[in-house]
């Protein structure tokens, strides 16, 4: 909220230093986002144009005799066209400094020595379009010679204050003034709302919707619409509101001052001279004050006369009953609507206003009466006749009483506060406090002021106390934690997985989880759709980590993250994926060093992550090369998939090189077991190599399994280490070299024993896999 310090100081005495105010606001919970400092201004006084004459030598210039309360009037020439005798205007005297860096020096304009300059609002640092076109006009009563800058606070900073959504009361000058008064230990000067109401002024409002909770209506006659007083115009302008006329400005002024939005209707333009709060009719049209046409629906709440909508509730008034120069009589609306309804209406109509920003939050009902009374007073000051207000709908409830146990302050904040301090703090914020003696425990009965609708429970009061006592008084302490009942296993597994991949030399990356449709389309799958994407690039959830990794075109990277599938229900899984990429050419069609390297990583990965060595079997999975894809399994369950990327996807995703990918579903990883140490045998081992010929379909793993089974426990390592395809072994066959290392724990293995074992192995290989020894 734009908060001119000049305006705040109307209600509370504040330090001169803006920084002190800014720091105090921040520690109260109202961070200041920006401080707008005015341009340096000096030497500008109020002057009356005692005489205005045409310049003898220039058609477009006037020569004014200006009374600035000094003995001798100043002679000032001006090119402005809006000057007239009797006006009181800001006058820059010789030596004055104006906005934009202009410094006033004596000069001669077409033969006339000009002793200063008449000043426009823009030259005072105000918005040019919001004031007179030409020289700014001051109130006729302004003391001549008075310092215009000081008088209107044009040297004061304007703060942009952030107000949290619960503190609608602080979206007003009075609200912030109350906070600062409490913090600086001073008090607020409440504005004057006393009015002698005129007799009569009946007015009827029918409330047809429960979303209008209260409506204070008030008639005002003898209205004279004109330019508002300077002080009011300047305050509104500094707060970012365009001044319009004395009457309209009063409604804005009261909203910014008290927080209660008001709407003024031209009473004589209300059909039937009454108002009805109702749901809009379907298709009903309305033109608002800013000239925009809206088509309405019954979801929207309006205030109508007997014929048509005159106001979109809480948002904006209609042009039909706009207060204008000819307005003689007005009706004041100070209403309270259901915030949610105003918010939904605003977002549907794409219409927001300063009024709706307040209505959307929980405005207190009692504020309607406060706002109406203050407006009445200001209108009376403008010479209008104000009739007594009429309240419709719910009466404002009595101020709630919240019980506060003193020990609750200590329980939540962790430090002790004296009863007197608690009471002092609450009272400084406008709460009324009564301490009742209940047994051994102090209990305060706290009456909440009408504007603090956010305070409803004990904890709210504790926050008020903490805020004013200062959050710095909270003493840092290390809390007790007992035996931890909650396991951290998912996190620990993820950490272990990341650690293992890093140990294997992979670099972790982080990619975006929202993707365009083109990703799953190219991959050939479907994906979970975002209902309200910001752009097409973020329309779908990732279904796999791999596409984004491919697009990075890096070697040895990994990512751990969640992927999403739609199987009627949304399925979320945590995956790890790791990628090798090379641009080196492929050597042999039946061998693939990159695959072997990736698989070695995958096996090491499973061992480190689970404490166990996996089995490997050939498999087919979408995304992988149909002939180069392995599953790593534990107890028959797939733990990881490792293989070459399907070359067709390589083309689709322009990998520009050979890519090998492994993927792990973290939920499939069994909890790690602690490996058991097996002491090596003290006896020498014997090693035998076999050159076997088998069908192409027989895998190394099958051979190793058969060998292990044939000589139960004797074969300590079995490793197929060389593969050959070619004319020597014939079509449909391949040759595999296998090294078997045999060893006994209890004695030295003899050649004869080894020979027997090899016999058994060859027999088993022959019968189970049709393997023969390669001849020659």
């Amino acid at each position: 909220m734009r908060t001119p310090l000049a305006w705040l100081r109307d209600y509370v005495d504040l330090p001169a230093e803006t920084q002190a105010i800014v720091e105090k606001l921040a520690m109260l919970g109202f961070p200041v986002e920006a401080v707008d400092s005015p341009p340096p201004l000096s030497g500008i006084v109020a002057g009356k144009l005692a005489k205005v004459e045409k310049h003898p030598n220039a058609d477009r210039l006037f020569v004014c005799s200006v009374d600035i309360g000094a003995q001798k009037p100043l002679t000032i020439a001006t090119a402005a066209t809006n000057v007239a005798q009797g006006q009181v205007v800001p006058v820059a005297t010789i030596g004055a400094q104006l906005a934009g860096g202009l410094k006033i020096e004596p000069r001669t304009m077409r033969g006339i020595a000009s002793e200063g300059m008449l000043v426009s609002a823009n030259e005072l640092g105000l918005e040019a379009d919001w004031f007179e076109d030409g020289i700014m006009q001051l109130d006729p009563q302004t003391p001549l010679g008075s310092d215009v800058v000081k008088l209107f606070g044009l040297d004061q900073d304007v703060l942009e204050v952030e107000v949290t959504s619960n503190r609608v009361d602080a979206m007003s000058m009075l609200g912030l003034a109350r906070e600062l008064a409490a913090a600086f230990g001073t008090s607020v000067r409440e504005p004057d709302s006393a009015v002698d109401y005129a007799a009569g002024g009946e007015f009827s409002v029918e409330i047809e919707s429960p979303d209008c909770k209260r409506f204070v209506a008030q008639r005002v006659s003898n209205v004279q619409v004109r330019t508002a007083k300077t002080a009011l115009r300047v305050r509104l302008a500094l707060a970012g509101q365009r001044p319009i006329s004395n009457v309209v400005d009063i409604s804005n002024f009261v909203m910014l001052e008290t927080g209660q939005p008001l709407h003024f209707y031209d009473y004589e333009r209300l059909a039937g001279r009454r108002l009805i709060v109702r749901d809009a009719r379907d298709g009903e049209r309305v033109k608002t004050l800013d000239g925009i046409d809206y088509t309405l629906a019954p979801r929207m709440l309006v205030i109508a006369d007997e014929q048509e909508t005159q106001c979109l509730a809480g948002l904006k008034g209609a042009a039909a009953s706009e207060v204008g120069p000819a307005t003689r009589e007005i009706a004041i609306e100070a209403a309270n609507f259901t915030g949610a309804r105003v918010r939904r209406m605003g977002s549907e109509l794409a219409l927001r206003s300063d009024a709706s920003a307040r209505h959307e939050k929980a405005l207190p009902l009692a504020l309607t009466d406060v706002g109406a009374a203050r407006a009445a007073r200001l209108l009376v000051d403008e010479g209008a006749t104000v009739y007594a207000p009429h309240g419709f709908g719910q009466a404002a409830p009595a101020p709630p009483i919240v019980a506060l146990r003193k020990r609750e302050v200590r329980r939540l904040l962790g430090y002790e506060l004296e009863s007197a301090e608690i009471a002092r703090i609450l009272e400084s914020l406008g709460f009324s406090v009564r301490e009742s003696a209940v047994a051994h425990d102090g209990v305060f009965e706290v009456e909440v002021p009408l504007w603090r609708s956010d305070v409803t429970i004990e904890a709210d009061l504790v926050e008020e106390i903490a805020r004013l006592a200062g959050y710095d008084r909270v003493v840092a302490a290390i809390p007790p934690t007992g035996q931890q009942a909650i396991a951290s296993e998912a996190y620990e597994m993820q950490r272990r997985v990341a650690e293992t991949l890093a140990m294997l030399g992979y670099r972790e990356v982080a990619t975006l989880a929202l993707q365009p449709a083109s990703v799953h389309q190219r991959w050939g799958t479907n994906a979970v759709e975002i209902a309200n994407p910001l752009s097409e690039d973020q329309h779908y959830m990732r279904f796999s980590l791999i596409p984004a990794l491919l697009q990075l075109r890096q070697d040895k990277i990994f990512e751990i993250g969640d992927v999403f599938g739609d199987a009627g229900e949304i399925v979320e899984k945590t995956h790890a994926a790791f990628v090798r990429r090379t641009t080196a050419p492929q050597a042999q069609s039946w061998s693939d060093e990159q695959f072997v390297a990736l698989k070695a990583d995958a096996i090491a990965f499973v061992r480190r992550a689970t404490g166990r060595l996996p089995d490997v079997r050939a498999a087919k999975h979408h995304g992988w090369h149909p002939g180069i894809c392995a599953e790593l399994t534990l107890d028959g369950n797939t733990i990881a998939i490792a293989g070459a990327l399907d070359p067709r996807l390589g083309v689709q995703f322009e990998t520009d090189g050979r890519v090998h990918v492994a993927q792990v579903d973290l939920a499939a990883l069994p909890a790690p077991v602690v490996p058991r140490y097996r002491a090596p045998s003290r006896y020498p081992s014997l090693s035998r190599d076999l050159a076997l010929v088998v069908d192409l379909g027989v895998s190394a793993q099958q051979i190793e399994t058969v060998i292990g089974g044939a000589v139960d426990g004797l074969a300590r390592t079995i490793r197929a280490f060389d593969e050959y395809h070619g004319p020597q072994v014939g079509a449909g066959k391949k040759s595999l070299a296998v090294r078997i290392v045999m060893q006994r724990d209890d004695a030295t293995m003899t050649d004869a024993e080894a020979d027997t074992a090899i016999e058994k192995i060859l027999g088993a290989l022959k019968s189970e896999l049709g393997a023969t020894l390669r001849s020659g």
Partner: protein
Amino acid sequence: MALHDQLSALAAELASALTSASDERALEELRIAYLGRSGKITEIRRGIGKLPPDERPTAGKSINDAVAGLEAQFAAAQQGIELRKLDAELERTLDVTLWNVPAPLGSFHPIRKTIDDACTYFVRHGFAVLLGPEVDTTRHNFDALNIPPDHPAREGFDSFYLRPDLLLRPHTSPMQIRAMEAYPPPIAIVVPGKCYRRDAVDARHLYQFNQIEGLQVGEGIHFGHLRGMLTGMCRELFGPRQEVRFRPSFFPFTEPSAEIDTTCPGCGGGGESCRTCGGSGWIEIGGSGMVHPNVLRAVGYDPDVVSGWAFGCGIERLAMVRYDIGDIREFIWNEPSFLEQLA
């Protein structure tokens, strides 16, 4: 020639031959020529057969002695070669300043490192680390957190929806509800994880980011404990002189509520034209407060018996300050130079 002379001549001959044997291969050739199966010693041994039987033992011994002598010569020559090789090796000089490039390390992403370091602190103090789903219900994300439909604060969470009641979590706070519904008090957890909000991407915003949530509920848990734990976390992440201060704020699920500031690590709190903190000496790292009684009630805890605190911090924000990163998009660009520097 007498056997004795013959052996002496052989030793002398070898001694001279060894002087020109410069490497192990030459040495091996000489060994074969002298001591090999058909070498000179073998030849001399054959001569023993022609001697009278009573001279043969003496002759045999003389030959064995001579062989020992030759072997000693070979050993000495071997040692000489090895010493020469060492000398040669010691002669070498490299320009050790050439090619100063670190070997590629496997590494963690800086976001994970920051998460891990923060979690480590809490684990050390007996907290559990929980992970939770990124897709969660409106109940967990809002309703149970005291943000009913139409609450103005709900607007602050501009979320991606998959179904009317299912969204990508805009904060890690739904895990407060999941944890408290699953476990009775006392509870002490931290929850790191990804969150999503409908923000346009620029140097300061990503629609996908990480938070760390903290929650402790039990008897006698108060605001001071929150300050203590956050101070500890900040010291773990930024250094031993970090302080934490609170500023009042509003979150529907905490009361009292506070913004968390910590000493700016860029300037050590000195401020003065510091680009990390903008001169204030403090940086804002998240929101926190005492768990709202309505939240405790929503999960079946009794707010009159237990109290608790919760906080949420943006990991990217912490990591940017920690590593002095100016653009949040660096985290998803994955430039090798970026990842390598922070490995």
